[in-house]
């Protein structure tokens, strides 16, 4: 394991940013956000960023294809350039797991090469959590916030940063920065992990599990009478889907630049009334159905298609941000209560 004095953190960022873009969670007008690092930029003290890290691989808007139209003819132009190499530093365990969930959508046949291109060029350096908050429940999905997944993993104590490379990409990054570090044992990391685990045990959602919703209860859950009361206050604002690291729904639209047509995709939300609107009707006509779709997808449909893996990583963003304080834990608990 490698160790670096926190005094040398700026040097570390400079070394990482030398050959590629570096993004770190930083303060942006009082909100924690991933920003492209520039000399002098400090890491945020906030536990996690307001928006998730999915933008790096699945940006909010992204050009797909351009067209030039002349008379009756159409020219199709692939607008893509090779993505640049980049490092995302300080990703939390929940967001790190969200990438493997998005992979199960975008990298299965037929592969989404836009996503794949970015995925291949990105190196993820994760950061173990020290002070998880009361909205956190990543442990409910088998995630260990004291030892996140990633190309490389870091732990931060009061005075030092510990670094461990995991994948070949992580090893490649390690080579570039190793000269700044010294070798160290893992005693300090072990001690910190034990402390954090004690904090985790005290978190209110620590014992939550979505387990009872697995298996073949699909139709029972779908037909639950509770959807109506659960969704009653939902504004259909879509906040929960936009902040969610695993929400992957998108829209495809054309934009006339005056000099050709740009076809792009942008995040969309199953909470919106026009999401499934067709010329002859709407398969999810009311907010009850749209609300149900979001939670059924994460807790039942996604697991049904992916060996039981849930489409939620317990990051707590939707708990913190929903204007009516509705969230996936309330929904799951209510449904599970009915199954008993």
């Amino acid at each position, binding site marked *: 394991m490698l160790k670096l004095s926190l005094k040398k953190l700026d040097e570390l960022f400079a070394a990482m940013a030398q050959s590629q873009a570096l993004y770190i969670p930083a303060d942006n007008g009082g909100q924690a956000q991933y920003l492209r690092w520039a000399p002098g930029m400090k890491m945020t003290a906030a536990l996690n960023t307001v928006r998730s890290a999915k933008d790096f691989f699945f940006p909010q808007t992204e050009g*797909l*294809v351009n067209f030039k*139209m002349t008379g009756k003819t159409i020219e199709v132009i692939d607008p893509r350039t090779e993505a640049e190499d980049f490092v995302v530093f300080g990703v939390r365990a929940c967001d790190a797991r969200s990438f493997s969930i998005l992979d199960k959508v975008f990298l299965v046949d037929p592969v989404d090469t836009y996503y794949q291109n970015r995925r291949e060029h990105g190196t993820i350096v994760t950061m173990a959590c020290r002070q998880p908050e009361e909205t956190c429940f990543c442990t409910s999905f088998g995630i260990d916030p004291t030892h996140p997944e990633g190309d490389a993993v870091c732990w931060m104590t009061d005075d030092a940063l510990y670094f461990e490379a995991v994948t070949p990409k992580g090893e490649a990054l390690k080579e570039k920065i190793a000269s700044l570090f010294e070798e160290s044992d893992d005693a300090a990391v072990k001690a910190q992990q034990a402390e954090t685990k004690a904090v985790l045990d005290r978190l209110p959602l620590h014992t939550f599990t979505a387990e009872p919703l697995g298996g073949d209860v699909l*139709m029972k859950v779908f037909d639950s009478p509770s959807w109506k009361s659960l969704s009653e206050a939902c504004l259909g604002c879509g906040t929960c889907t936009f902040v969610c690291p695993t929400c992957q729904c*998108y829209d495809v639209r054309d934009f006339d630049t005056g000099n050709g047509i740009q076809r792009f995709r942008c995040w969309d939300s199953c909470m919106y009334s026009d999401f499934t609107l067709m010329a002859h009707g709407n*398969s*999810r006509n009311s907010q009850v159905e749209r609300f149900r*779709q979001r939670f*059924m997808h994460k807790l039942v449909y996604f697991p049904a298609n992916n060996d039981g893996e849930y489409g939620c990583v317990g990051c707590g963003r939707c708990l913190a941000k929903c204007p009516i304080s509705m969230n996936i834990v309330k929904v799951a608990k209510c449904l599970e209560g009915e199954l008993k």
Partner: protein
Amino acid sequence: MNTETLIPKVGVVTDIRIDTPDVKTFRVVGLDGKKVFEHIPGQCAMLSVPGVGEGMFSITSSPTNTEFMEFSIKKCGCLTSWLHAMEVGQQITIRGPYGNGFPVETALKGKDLLFIAGGIGLAPLRSVINYVRDKRENYGKIQIIYGSRSKDDLVDYQEILDEWMQDEGVEVNLTIDREQEGWDGHVGFVPNYVKELNPDLSKTVLMCGPPIMIKFTLAGLKELGFQETQVYTTMELRMKCAIGKCGRCNIGNKYVCKDGPVFRFDELDELPNEY
């Protein structure tokens, strides 16, 4: 040019046939004059006019047609109105094929087939019908029950008269909703007509049409003694990506663009009733 599924190919419209007051059938080939891709009956393609929109359409021609693909398109909105207004020689974009298609080489092989269609619902079935007619030896008897609002709303009417009705071993039963001058055929709704005709229970049924027709016809078929495992249909939901990723067209954990659009009714029974 490329194998990227979200990046379409260019197609040229080489023929436009007016079928009904609101349905036209378009013939499409690639820039090289050949078919843009091969498909299985029941599969679809995303057609688009850049700047106007993109939409999913059944490939109504049979895969046994080696020269071109055809799409029967009902005018109902932005894109479809644009398509209806275009002229021969216009280029459009096309990507596909998408979806599972009908099991013509497996479950349907050797069976007596009953096709039931309403209105534009004939589009996906025409691909199967012409496929089966071209590979006659592989299938049993064919019966086609097809209905529309009026005589003028029967899609592919000329082909039905000139080709399907002339084939041996193909029985065609047409019906229209209301009496009309110059029509001496059957009058009445499809579900009732199916019950009147009382088709043999050994037949495998392929049914496409408006949701209301599907609902009543299925009920009628069950009354006659048909099992859900004998009846196939196609589903239509809003689509964008056509590859199971934009999250739009699901019924439960199935994506209609990828796992459908063809479903057997017993398969639909296991899914939430949300379509």
